[in-house]
Each structure stands twice: as structure tokens, then as C-alpha cells.
């Protein structure tokens, strides 16, 4: 127990620094993924054949291969074509692109759940297609997507741990270097697991709160018509 305490005193600052980068990567990946996912889902639901094909290709490709694979293609593969990014950019790109594909599917599900009726109602008072999507369908679809979507931040936070394999100094990378110093890999990774657990727990609690305050009375996934 004393050893554990000393361990934390000695390495906590380092771990917190790593955790900070983990949180940053999560926030960046989530935001980029949200924008990508929104565009891809809109393209897949409302786009013409060509745009829809592009969106489907993007979504299926990134959901059909491991994140680590995507990370390596960007970090090791692209330089072969003369395209080079820094480690941090590679991590950001891989996480954002990967998360975007998953977020696109959450959003697509709720766009489809809104149904054609709302589009028709919007058009019937003279709104254009784009305006109806923006003012009528998206506000509803985004709220509807929250329960399913709220898995994504936690899932992405956990996913960020693989980027230590291209030496981005986030929490898992710190863990690796601490383990090398203490010669106690099991203890070290257990301690780091605790830090992850705390982050996941806090994030989850926050998302539940968001879910609660964004509710519209009488507006839920079930019990809605057309």
C-alpha cells in the first residue's frame, strides 16, 4: 500500500500530463469526427447518387478496418506517397476520421427516424430543402441521436490509447515509460487503468447530464408518428 502511495506521488504529475493529452486527443477527434460524421450522414441520406456513394465508401472503409491500421497507414504509409504529418497530426487525423465514420451512422439512424413527414411539412410552408434540413430536421435528429451517440465519446477516449504506438506522449505512452523505470509493468498499468477508469466515469456522468437537460417534453424516439 505504501509502495502504491509513493508510486502515485512520484508519477502522478507525469500521468496527469499524459491524461491531459488523452483528453485533448479525445476532444479533437470527437469534434472533427462530429463535423465529418454530420456531413457524411447528410450526404448518405439526402445526397445524390455520387455524393451518397462517396459517403458510403468513407463510412464502410473506416468502420471495416481497425483504428490501428488507419493510424499506421497515415503515419507510415502516406509518407511513401510523399505526404507527411507530425505524430500529433497523424493521431488527430486517424481518430477524427475513424470517429467520423461511427458518428455518421449514429446520426444517419436518427435522420431516418425523423421521417419524410417533417420534410414535407417544412416544404409546405415554403422552406427550401436545405432550410428544412437545417431548421427542422437537424435540430430533431441531433437530439434524437444523443442517447446512442453518447457512447462515442467514451469509446473514443478508450481508443486514443493506441496512439502511443506512434509515440504520441499521451497517458498510455507515459505508462510505458514509467513501467520501464519501475520494472513493475503490472502495477504501473493497473494504476494507469485506474486513471482511465476515472476519466471514463466522469465523462459518462457528464453525458448522462447532457442527455437529461436536452430532453424535449413528449419528444422521444418511441411514441412518435410518421
Amino acid at each position: 500500500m505504501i509502495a502504491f502511495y509513493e508510486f502515485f506521488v512520484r508519477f502522478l504529475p507525469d500521468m496527469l500530463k499524459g491524461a491531459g493529452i488523452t483528453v485533448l486527443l479525445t476532444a479533437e477527434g470527437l469534434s472533427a469526427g462530429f463535423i465529418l460524421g454530420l456531413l457524411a450522414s447528410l450526404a448518405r441520406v439526402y445526397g445524390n447518387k455520387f455524393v451518397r456513394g462517396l459517403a458510403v465508401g468513407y463510412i464502410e472503409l473506416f468502420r471495416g478496418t481497425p483504428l490501428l491500421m488507419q493510424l499506421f497507414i497515415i503515419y507510415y504509409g502516406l509518407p511513401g506517397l510523399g505526404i507527411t504529418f507530425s505524430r500529433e497530426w497523424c493521431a488527430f487525423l486517424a481518430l477524427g476520421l475513424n470517429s467520423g465514420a461511427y458518428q455518421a451512422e449514429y446520426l444517419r439512424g436518427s435522420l431516418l427516424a425523423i421521417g419524410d413527414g417533417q420534410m414535407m411539412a417544412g416544404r409546405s410552408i415554403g422552406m427550401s430543402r436545405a432550410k428544412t434540413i437545417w431548421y427542422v430536421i437537424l435540430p430533431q435528429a441531433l437530439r434524437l441521436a444523443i442517447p446512442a451517440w453518447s457512447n462515442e465519446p467514451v469509446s473514443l477516449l478508450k481508443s486514443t490509447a493506441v496512439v502511443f504506438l506512434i509515440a504520441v506522449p499521451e497517458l498510455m505512452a507515459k505508462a510505458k515509460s514509467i513501467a520501464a523505470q519501475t520494472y513493475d509493468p503490472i502495477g504501473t498499468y493497473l494504476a494507469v487503468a485506474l486513471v482511465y477508469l476515472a476519466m471514463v466515469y466522469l465523462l459518462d456522468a457528464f453525458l448522462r447530464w447532457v442527455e437529461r437537460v436536452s430532453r424535449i417534453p413528449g419528444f422521444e424516439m418511441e411514441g412518435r408518428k410518421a
Partner: protein
Amino acid sequence: MLSNFFSYIIQGTAITIGVTLVALPFGLLLGLLMALVHTYGGKIANRLAAIYSLLLRGVPPIVLLFILYFILSGKVVNLTPFWAGSLSLGIVSSAYQMEILRGALLAVGGGQMTAARAIGMSRLQAIQTIVLPQALRLAIPPWSNEASIVLKDSSLVYALGVPEILRRAQQLSATTQQPFLAYGIAALIYFVLVFATNRALDYLSERTKLPTHP
């Protein structure tokens, strides 16, 4: 040249499939056990199962993989990286599979258990012959999703030095100085594997569907 590339990486593919085929059934067995404990166990067993699930699902798989790997390839137990990695992945997956099966067990509902007990079956018999056959069918669609996640997560054993697809791609890229091609082929193989897995499980789901289920 391209066919040489392929045949080199294909050897890693066998290992990727091997890891998945160990991890997935092992995770299923463990997950099923925990789901049954959580649903039908006593108060303490139920609580323990819940904690098991929360702990494993709250930590990144790669972190758990490292912890379990160091335990399973340590002084007490000493497994090869392939086995230590595969079983570790199986343990990680068991928590997710447990949640899938728990949902399915709940969906079958207590009425089926009551009906089975009413015709004189023991609890165990009822679970085995009445509840599980229904629950497992219900679990197939979400379980398919987990299967493709395990297939994709098998890439994590790269970090333990197991020569699966990614490791092979890395070696190939180093010897040929053609990184994009090497990793591109690896990605293509993954895509095909995931696609085939999804299709196969869709088929299984279709075949095992009960005619009365909507």
C-alpha cells in the same frame, strides 16, 4: 511483385484469424458465464459480475491487454505471446459479450422461466433448454457486431510482437521501402475479413431466426 506482397501478408492473416478464433469463443464462454451469474446469481454474485463488467469496459482494451499479458506470460503462468494475447483479448471481450447476453436474457423474460418451472424443470434445466436457446438467437445481431470488433481489436496484439497482419505489413514495408502499398494491402485484407465476417453472421442470424419472431 504484388502477389509476393500478398502472400507475405497472408501468413499474418492466418495469425489474425487465429487470435480472433481463440479470443471470441473464450470471451463468449466467459461472458455467458458472467451473464448467467449476473441474471440468476445471488446478491453478492450479481454485484461481483456487475463490477467485473464495469471495470473491464471502463479501461481501454490495449491497457487491459498489457496488464493481462504480463500476468499470463509471467513467472506463474508462462504462455507464448500468441496465447497470452489471444486469451487476454478474450477476457476483454467477455465483458462486452456479457452485456449483450444479459440484454438477451432479460428480453426473453421471466415468464419463460416460470413456465418451465411449472412443468417441473429445475432452474438449471430451464436455463439450458428453454431460456438460453431463445436468448442466444436474440443475441446474434449485437453479437455479430462484437465479433467484428474482436477481429479488428486483434490488431492490438501487434504491440505484443505477435506477427499478425500489421506486424507483417510493417516488416514488408521495411524490406521493400513501399510503405503505402504494404499497409494498403493490409487494410484491404482487414476490410475483406470484416466484410466476410459480417456477411457470414447475417446469414447465421437469418438461418436461426424463429418463425414466430418478428
